[in-house]
């Protein structure tokens, strides 16, 4: 399995960041950056990362089951993450999530058949003072109302 030249360079640099013999430390970043390019943590990606870090696939599995941002199946092209934690909840986060469910016809961690949108009710994303907040992929949107939500979707072509 090969990656884009940029990602190959990133991986090559990354393994030099840790003390000799402790290259497993690159595992979580490799899975995150790998997922961004491949779309999900596919069995092939797991095997490739394990091979490069000289660890067993089961060690990759172990980590995969723990971190909420690592997904075995591809999320949508636009992964919509709505925070409903306490700061967002107080100013309309729950209603915003309900609106998102209806608008996208999705529930928590579901993906549309055409792969365009997926939805996730997320825990605090660190935007509490500008709540309610959502992330579409890695982009933050603050003070999101249902109307603003619809216009954000309008830009997700």
């Amino acid at each position, binding site marked *: 399995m090969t990656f884009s030249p940029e990602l190959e360079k990133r991986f090559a640099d990354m393994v030099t*960041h840790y003390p000799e013999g402790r290259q497993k430390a690159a595992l979580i970043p490799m899975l995150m950056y790998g997922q961004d390019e491949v779309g999900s943590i596919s069995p092939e990606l797991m095997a490739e990362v394990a091979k490069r870090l000289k660890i067993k696939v089961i060690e990759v599995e172990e980590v995969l089951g723990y971190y909420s941002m690592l997904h075995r199946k591809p999320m949508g092209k636009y992964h919509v993450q709505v925070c409903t934690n306490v700061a967002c909840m107080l100013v309309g986060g729950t209603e915003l999530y309900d609106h998102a469910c209806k608008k996208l016809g999705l529930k928590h961690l579901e993906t549309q058949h055409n792969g365009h949108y997926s939805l996730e009710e997320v825990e605090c994303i660190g935007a509490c003072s500008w709540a309610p907040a959502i992330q579409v992929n*890695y982009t933050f949107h603050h003070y999101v109302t249902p109307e603003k939500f619809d216009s954000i979707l309008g830009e997700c072509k």
Partner: protein
Amino acid sequence: MGRLYNEPSPLEVKIVTRNFGLPNSESIDTYLAHQGYEALKKAIGMSQEQIIDEVKASSLRGRGGAGFPTGMKWGFVPRQLDKPKYIVVNADESEPGTCKDRLLIEFDPHQLIEGILIAALAVGAEKGWIYIRGEYRYLIDIMDKALAEAYAHGFLGKSIAGSQFKFDLYTQTGAGAYECGEESALLESLEGNRGIPRIRPPFPAVSGAFQCPTVLNNVETFCAVPAIIRDGGKAFADLGIPKAGGTRMVCIAGHVNKPGVYEVPLGFPMMKFINEVAGGIPNGRKLKAVIPGGSSCPILRADECDLNMDYDSLAKAKSMLGSGGMVVMDETTDMVKVALRIMRFYQHESCGWCIPCREGTTWLRKMLQRVTDGQGMTRDIDLIGDLAKNMLGRTFCPLGDAAALPTISLVEKFRGEFEAYVAKNPLAKNELVSVG
């Protein structure tokens, strides 16, 4: 003016946020034009003891939540030990209510780099990692750019600022786990493992990253260091109150007119902060309760909020200053729903390593859900309180306490609201209360 998230308040005292709002505040040129890296050059001329003493004199305490004195923490590193020493930055900001470290990296990444370099000088460290939560991907890009600039200007790498000092610094991404904000779980995650806490001792100062002595501090803690070295520990200490020096960033969210992140001196009055800095409660409503420093802090009733924001005052009120994430609730807030939402979070984030936390958060969530659904019994309210109390102090890391403490305070201080939910359950009328 550069881009800001909220208007600054005239009541702020800006130390770590002093460059916010400058054009291109994230660039090394802007930083250098505003005394950037001067503290580093000064520190290069100081002995390790002098640096640590200066930080001790500042009475800087950790800004991540626990509030441990920073100078003392650095002093615990066995500098003579023949092992590499490391610096790890906790930028895994995920305590609900907290959104300040994000701004420090976004608007002034070089201040963080300079703080890290001074810490590295103080303990003789040669490498460091900035562990940034996965959701903050854009910050990793900003930080990587700042690191490249610092290397290009000779502030990272070999012979830093023309001296013998060498240091390498990298970013490391998390992948979505609140637990990794806990220092020992963060170290596990950094090493490529599940973020499960380690038993202590040994503390990270002795055995941290890759089992080597490690200084591990929050972003804001490192960011305060350049000012301490530049202007002296005493000047910083004098901004705050005895035993808690300097300023800190407070994030305010919820029912206020001007939510935002503001930097105020330690010991700033809480009601003045809510009413004058954050513009008070909207729509003429009354204050009901405040989470003072992130959702793991015991909640304060409105009548308990007439206090100063410092470690000891909050401790006296049986709460915590925490990570500076203040959540304000007005009189319309349903405290049972707040309790349930907070518990849903901790149940989701419990790593499952310690049984009292794993099982406790699950049962508490179930019971709180039952009460919220109008199917609770009076005995559930007591059981929620009892179960939470039995979790306290029985886990490797503070997540168990973080789940239990707000729950205990919510049940004790707003019991009437829980009872009102129970009264909706017709079965509760015939409830037999067991004796003994």
